[in-house]
């Protein structure tokens, strides 16, 4: 019963155009506004590398959020990505110590396989991704505990190249964040300019329609989850770059909800079929900015959760992609 307005004049009216324009710049505007607000309230923030801090903090959120966006785009959700990040980081720290320079490559392959396993089970047993990845989340978390021996794994050797990702940058933007931006560009290009990318969006918009268009929906689902695993692994890489160590409950273990929030603040639809990885960059920056901003501006520490919750709701309300007759769940 989609409203059949078959009489839309070519190009749509002004309201539709404005809505479309806002959809493409909303996340950017929201981030810039918040950032400007912080800069005005705390002028020293800009002069002392505020940008660097926000960017470095946003790096891992961004990578996880990009993976999540790709999965949300096909209408699924990946609750296991943060546990893949931390497991990947732990494995990386361990293998850097033992096998050395080839470790990152090896780990990225392994985490991609983890993602692929999620995808394979979802695609071929047709279970809801929410429940399945909740289950694998537990398994990856256990794996992180077991392989690390429930303690912090510290990178002793061969870590300099990776640490340089965090410590060096272009114009104050750490390489870890630049890595995220590059990933976003690639993802954006992939979704807009390749057949598998377009087909993935088709799945998110109407899976039945995609099936009847001859699209290999199952394998594309596997691909989306594999990419999510890969990007989660990259996030793990940035954790090691930043901390030089990893532990099962430490940095990177709580990226799940910030990642989803970043994807949605970046205009990704939680019901599938709508995402713009470039905007997810600003979503991640916004989500990373909130706690930093509340500390910088000097919100009383006890009220910070409250502020965080409200800001998330408001920013999503502002950047949401919604059409008048769509159903929100």
């Amino acid at each position, binding site marked *: 019963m*989609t409203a059949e*307005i*078959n009489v*839309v*004049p*070519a190009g749509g009216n002004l309201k539709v155009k404005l809505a479309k324009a806002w959809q493409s710049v909303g996340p950017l505007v929201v981030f810039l506004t918040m950032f400007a607000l912080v800069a005005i309230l705390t002028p020293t923030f800009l002069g002392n590398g505020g940008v660097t801090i926000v960017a470095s903090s946003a790096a891992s959120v961004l990578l996880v959020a990009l993976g999540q966006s790709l999965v949300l785009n096909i209408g699924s959700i990946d609750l296991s990505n943060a546990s893949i990040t931390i497991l990947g980081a732990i494995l990386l720290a361990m293998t850097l110590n033992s096998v050395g320079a080839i470790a990152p490559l090896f780990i990225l392959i392994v985490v991609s396989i983890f993602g692929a396993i999620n995808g394979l089970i979802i695609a071929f047993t047709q279970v809801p991704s929410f429940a399945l990845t909740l289950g694998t989340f537990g398994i990856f978390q256990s794996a992180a505990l077991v392989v690390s021996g429930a303690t912090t794994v510290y990178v002793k050797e061969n870590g300099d190249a990776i640490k340089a990702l965090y410590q060096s940058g272009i114009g104050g933007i750490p390489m870890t964040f630049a890595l995220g931006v590059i990933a976003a560009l690639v993802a954006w290009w992939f979704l807009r300019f390749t057949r598998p990318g377009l087909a993935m969006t*088709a799945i998110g918009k109407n899976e039945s*329609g995609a099936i009847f268009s001859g*699209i290999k929906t199952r394998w594309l689902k596997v691909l989306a989850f594999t990419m999510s695993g890969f990007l989660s692994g990259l996030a793990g890489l940035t954790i090691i770059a930043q901390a030089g160590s990893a532990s099962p409950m430490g940095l990177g273990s709580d990226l799940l909800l910030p990642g989803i929030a970043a994807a949605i603040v970046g205009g990704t639809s939680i019901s599938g079929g709508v995402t713009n990885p470039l905007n997810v960059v600003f979503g991640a920056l916004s989500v990373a900015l909130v706690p930093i901003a509340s500390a910088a501006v000097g919100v009383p520490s006890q009220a910070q959760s409250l502020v965080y919750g409200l800001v998330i709701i408001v920013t999503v309300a502002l950047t949401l992609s919604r059409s008048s007759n769509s159903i929100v769940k």
Partner: protein
Amino acid sequence: MTPSTKSGVPVIALTNIEKSFGSNKAVKGISFSINPGEVVGLIGENGAGKSTLLKILTGMYQPDAGSIEVNGKVVKFKNPRDSISAGIGVVHQEQSLFTNLTVAENIAMNSGKGSSASTKFGIYRWSQIYQAAKVTLEAIGSKLDPKAVVNQLGFVDRQMVEIARAVSADAGADGSSLVILDEPTSVLEKHETEVLEKEIRKLKNFGAVIFVSHRLDEIMRNCERILVMRDGELVADRKTSEVTEKQLFKLMIGHDSRAEASSRKSIDSKETAAIEVNSLSRKGKFSNVSFSVHSGRLTAIVGATGSGREELARALFGAEKIDSGSVLLDGKQINNWRIPKAVKSGIGYVPSERKIEGIIGGFTASENLTLTHPGKSALGPFLIPRARKKIAQDWFNALDVRPNDISQELGRFSGGNQQKVVMAKWLNSPELRVLILDHPLRGLDPGAAETVNAEIKRACKEGAAVILLADTLEEALEMGDQVLVMRDGEVTSSYDLAKQNPSTLDLLERMV
């Protein structure tokens, strides 16, 4: 549920109703009235403004100007609830039942006054709900079990529930009431339609009926008066006895019908068939089906609900499993049949559930068109948007898709124009071998149906083998080179129309 005895006061009267979307006027100054006991037909092409008008009547849209009177009183419908409590019930074009609830509840769920008898302070009284549903169902002559859950019912039964619900909404209103039937027959088979038509005649006892359909013969049979809409205006309001089908067609479309007789080829038996089906079976659906279609020929399959022809068509496209038997494409046997493989092998399928299976509503027309067979708009996995635009624009021009805007979301086009794009999606394949069409004209207005039929014939001429599940027997006989009749999952007869000339009655005999 007392039949109205008031006379003189129209059940519903519209005066100068207007509605615009943006700069576009969808409904332009419509006025008419309907008296108790009347069955009025409403026809018009897709996009003529019928849907908008119906949505105004049911409270989904609010008119920009004009007034509505129900039983002599001016009313304003702010939402569907207002319309329902004024006594307007609708049987929707696409079924609108809650599949997870029982028949009785679906009937009661219409939140008019009718339902308040069975809930008290929001508490359900199930026995009364069942009882009320039983009474309503009996009144329309249905023997359905009120306790049955809707997702276990067949299509016709569901339609009956819809009607019962529409009637029960009216029961609560003061004075006479109005039942709107929005293309209730578009998805029904012939004999099912007959059952339904009987019901429609009974419905006028409840008040008045507005009957919307694309099938002019149905309108002529069932209605006393006919309203014709074109481009948002009411172009005619005629007594049925004073018009012919041809005149109606002209009023709707603005020109005469251009149907042309098809020339039929007979089979060259030496040639390898494009598709050959050998004793294909699927448990509980169809069994031992064998036939073949040659390149350039059209095979129409007819059968009632449950004949298995839909499942067969879907199985040929790889959408359903096959238990035994074989399918040969150009003489080569294919195994492990799946949709992607079917598509790759040159098979196209136009599904009957267009909105769910046929299109990606949120994609633009051009994206939809090139999604399956990108042609020159992709180089391997890489897309070339500019080439995509050109391909889409060419098809839009060739098929006269309206509005002529390839960057519009396809979901916003009318059904007929969507169907043209779905056809183009398959025709865009350079090596289309077999085209399977499942009720391709369903819900289409005559103008769009003409274009689609022309495309089907052209595809055939250009060498595709076409398998058609037609809406009507007439359509099957007109379009087909060969007609297969199916019953209970088996092929009961096969006619080569180049040699034989069966009547619709002949076909019907083998169907039931």
